[in-house]
């Protein structure tokens, strides 16, 4: 990711928009006992397109904003989302994946990591009450719902971040297409 003031502004506005949407609308949409959760998806998208450094910074910022805006224990969300952002970013840097449907497993994995790790942190810090087994079903449903939502969220994030990206996975995918083997003789073997 090219670190310019414009890039910081774009990422900041993207995170703020996701937070407001999550708190005031998306988080209140319940389906089959679970809820959509934009926060890990947006952090994963920033990490996927921007790399591990942008991912960990975006994760920390998003977590900080959630804790401040929702009145939760400060530091808990930022710790978990930092790890999620860094992990997704490193995966992207090491494997350089370019499949068009990759946001689905990445979104699901990021959400699963977020709900599991946040549960663990909450348990360790200040949850002293009985925990219902239903919470596991809620976590699974949230992961599935987020997997459905990941393609449009990643596409929207890519659109916002594109001017600041050094490498766009969609361009990588286009470059990897096999060369033409049919058509006019002069074009065979060429990427046209």
């Amino acid at each position, binding site marked *: 990711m090219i670190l310019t003031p414009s890039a910081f502004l774009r990422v900041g506005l993207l995170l703020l928009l996701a937070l*407001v*949407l*999550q*708190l*005031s*609308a*998306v*988080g*209140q*949409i*319940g*389906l*089959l006992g679970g*809820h959509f*959760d934009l*926060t890990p998806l947006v952090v994963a998208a920033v990490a996927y397109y921007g*790399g*591990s*450094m942008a991912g*960990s*910074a975006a*994760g*920390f910022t998003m*977590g*900080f904003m*959630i*804790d*401040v*805006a*929702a*009145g*939760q*224990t*400060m*530091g*808990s969300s*930022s*710790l978990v989302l*930092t*790890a999620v952002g*860094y992990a997704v970013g490193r995966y992207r840097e090491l494997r350089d994946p370019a499949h068009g449907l990759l946001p689905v497993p990445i979104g699901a994995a990021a959400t699963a990591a977020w*709900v599991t790790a*946040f*549960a663990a942190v*909450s348990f360790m*810090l*200040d*949850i*002293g*009450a*009985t*925990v*219902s*087994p*239903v*919470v*596991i079903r*809620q976590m699974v449903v949230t992961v599935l719902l987020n997997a459905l939502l990941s393609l449009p969220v990643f596409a929207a994030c890519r659109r916002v971040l594109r001017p600041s990206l050094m490498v766009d996975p969609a361009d990588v995918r286009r470059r990897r297409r096999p060369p033409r083997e049919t058509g006019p003789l002069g074009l065979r073997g060429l990427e046209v």
Partner: protein
Amino acid sequence: MFDKGVVRRRRAALAICVALSVALLTAYFGESGGGVLHTLQRGAQEALAPIETGAGRALKPLRDLFGWAGDTIEAKKENKRLKGELERLRGELAQAETARRDARQLRGLVGLQRDDGFPRGTQPVTARVIARSPTVWYSSVKVDKGASDGVKVDQPVLASGGLAGKITRVTGGTAEVTLLTDASSAVSAQIMPQGANGIVKPEVGNPRDLLLDFVEKGRRVTHGTTVVTSGFTSSRVESLFPRGIPIGRVTQVDLDEVELYQRVHLKPFADLRRIDFVQVLTARGRPASATAGLTP
């Protein structure tokens, strides 16, 4: 393969973010409710409130659409249960009418005065829910009424049907309601009409189930009875909740021979998963003993 500078920067970014998170956690637990981080939270909530209110109203049709889909799935089961409950309530209504007539005559005899409205002597302020905690571990909502409307910390909050929680943080124009389903919640309660006392606590992650704990083992608890706030008052402490606010209905009783107490499961009257409006009781309800000496 990788530039060493890039690797160093990447690791430094991760280390800084993790260190900052741990420092925030430590500082947050170490400071009092009036500390810098708590003040920052209140300020940020105040600043975000207008945006959240606007976004919440604009996106309400979308929420309703998904809510409708979920409701349809549960509607058949709910309909069957409600029909059975209607039959039972018809019988109870007849009994209640008789008891009410008797009670009116008895009240006249002993000179008790009963205020209109519920709970007695309280001043409800209606507020709209503008934001909700994004995780199941912290069950709280933010409402669009705050200190300027007379809302204060620890005031009880009702949703349609019964008790929803209490105010835990207040800014000028907003307030945070910690719901009964939050891990930190505990309410002294009484089973009616048996009178057994206990503490209502959440079962984290399951908003349809509350636990009434510390109910004496010998007390008989019947399925379907109502649980209300006990509103106890002693010389040293007083319950935050006025007496008589309905909380839920008994659904199950766990009898464990090893335990000293029995554990009662309740289904809350208020649907804590979908709250759009709440009422904050901005004045203290008068305890029962205060009204006992009044004459008509």
